[in-house]
């Protein structure tokens, strides 16, 4: 048998052909081409107008505000998120319960409502005071002079994000095997040392992908602050088109900027993922990717 095979000319492998795949490729290319031509030639898109507003001073200022809000809300969200996640996995029932309540409330109410709530804090508490409870306050100021639209936006977005990130970070902490903490403890590490040096770095692999999604989501959620008259990218566009009625071109302008920013964020995310993927086997990376997929499927949008 074997000799018979060996005497024949060396066998060649021929790749299998997939005719339907070829058909699919052609259809996709045709539809894409048609779409591109339509969008480019339809004058109502007013591309020259879109481009002329791209670097408009108002749009630039709004862009700066959007980036600033996204950054500051994510920083607050991360700090709060770590704190609440640690409380959630605490041995104390009170801490677990109260942090659960926080997540329940801030995740369970629309961000839009939360923003308007913080904006109208002065209605509920006309004066903000510093002092001991039940005693004459030491300092007292009108709420509206402290809670500006900017602070209301930062509070609204940051506190809300904290609840989401707490759940993501908690899932990350729980993904690290118990043996890791035991090993850290056995070489004499304190709880804080083992959390910072052993648990958190490993949890990051699970935390980063959904946090990247959250950041991109936050970038777009900041457009909600237009309801409390804070001039972010969206509000700036609105304020221009309410005078000139160039609604569609201006929405295209801001969409271009949102796309630019999300592209940059996605790039940054993949860099950070590579950093925290050190030492992970291919199978483990697969798990992290599955988590990301799960997250995307579970929560298609945060909605206002």
């Amino acid at each position: 048998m074997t000799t018979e095979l060996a005497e024949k000319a060396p066998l060649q492998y021929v790749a299998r052909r997939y005719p339907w795949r070829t058909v699919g490729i052609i259809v996709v290319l045709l539809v894409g081409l048609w779409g591109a031509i339509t969008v480019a030639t339809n004058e109502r898109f007013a591309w020259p107008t879109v481009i002329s507003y791209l670097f408009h001073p108002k749009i630039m200022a709004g862009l700066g505000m959007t980036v600033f809000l996204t950054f500051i809300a994510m920083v607050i969200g991360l700090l709060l998120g770590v704190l609440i996640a640690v409380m959630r996995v605490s041995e104390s029932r009170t801490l677990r319960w109260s942090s659960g309540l926080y997540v329940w409330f801030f995740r369970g109410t629309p961000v839009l409502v939360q923003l308007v709530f913080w904006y109208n804090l002065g209605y509920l508490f006309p004066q903000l005071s510093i002092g001991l409870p039940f005693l004459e306050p030491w300092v007292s100021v009108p709420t509206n002079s402290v809670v500006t639209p900017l602070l209301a936006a930062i509070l609204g977005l940051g506190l809300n994000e904290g609840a989401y990130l707490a759940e993501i970070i908690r899932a990350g902490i729980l993904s690290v095997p118990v043996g890791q903490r035991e090993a850290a403890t056995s070489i004499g590490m304190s709880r804080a040392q083992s959390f910072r040096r052993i648990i958190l770095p490993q949890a990051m692999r699970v935390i980063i992908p959904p946090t990247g999604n959250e950041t991109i989501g936050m970038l777009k959620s900041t457009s909600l602050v237009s309801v409390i008259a804070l001039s972010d990218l969206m509000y700036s566009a609105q304020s221009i088109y309410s005078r000139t009625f160039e609604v569609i071109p201006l929405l295209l302008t801001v969409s271009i900027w949102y796309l630019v920013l999300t592209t940059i964020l996605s790039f940054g995310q993949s860099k950070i993922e590579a950093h925290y993927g050190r030492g992970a086997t291919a199978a483990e990376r697969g798990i992290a990717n599955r988590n990301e997929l799960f997250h995307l499927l579970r929560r298609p949008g945060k909605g206002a």
Partner: protein
Amino acid sequence: MPTTTTSTSVDVVDVHKSYHHHRVLNGISLHVPANSVTSILGPSGSGKSTLLRSINRLIPIDSGTIRVGDQLIGYEERGGRYHALSDRDMCRQRQRIGMVFQGFNLFPHKTVLANLVEGPQVVLRRPKRETEEEARELLASVGLAEKANQYPGQLSGGQQQRVAIARALAMKPELILFDEPTSALDPELVGEVLDVMRRLADGAETTMIVVTHEIGFAREVSDQIVFMADGVVDAAGAPGDVLHADRSPRMRAFLSRGLH
């Protein structure tokens, strides 16, 4: 092997531990002399691992005392009462006690060398160069000098466990606890880990307590064999005295199942 300079004895007196009304340790008492090797054998569920983990207080006990050298583990005696130690003091006690786990538990996000220097640098705050030098010597002594810059995930189970032993040794412990160190290994990798442990035992510079199912290994290296059943010591003594089938029906049942 470049290891420790001092070693210590262990005294367990009347220790109880229950999980949800299930008694795991039932008033167990045990003496392990300094510089000796003690193997703990026994059927599964007899409380071997729980005992081992209570010695470095990975598991808190319900009553009784555990002393490593002259130090009471987890508590301090003040005014005739036992006060629980602070997290910081507990960490200080654990620095002297090394542990090797069934599942290795190496830090997967750190290289082999970084695994070894983590404790000395972060916990003991010793200088980088010195600790790295020592870590490389330790790696060489377990035959893995060339793996220093690899990640644990790139090593075989046997190699990982040898690194884990080196990581425990890097803290220069007075006592090392081995929790079924070969149970998670493929049969052909058991030998290399036992070899390392055997050399460590021959060096006799550190006290070793080994929970194991490897009866042959235990018989060969141990100064003392402790046979546990139902949360107490059923028999303890020199290997030749304890590992006899006619000692008790329990021992006969255990040996007939365990001997390969």
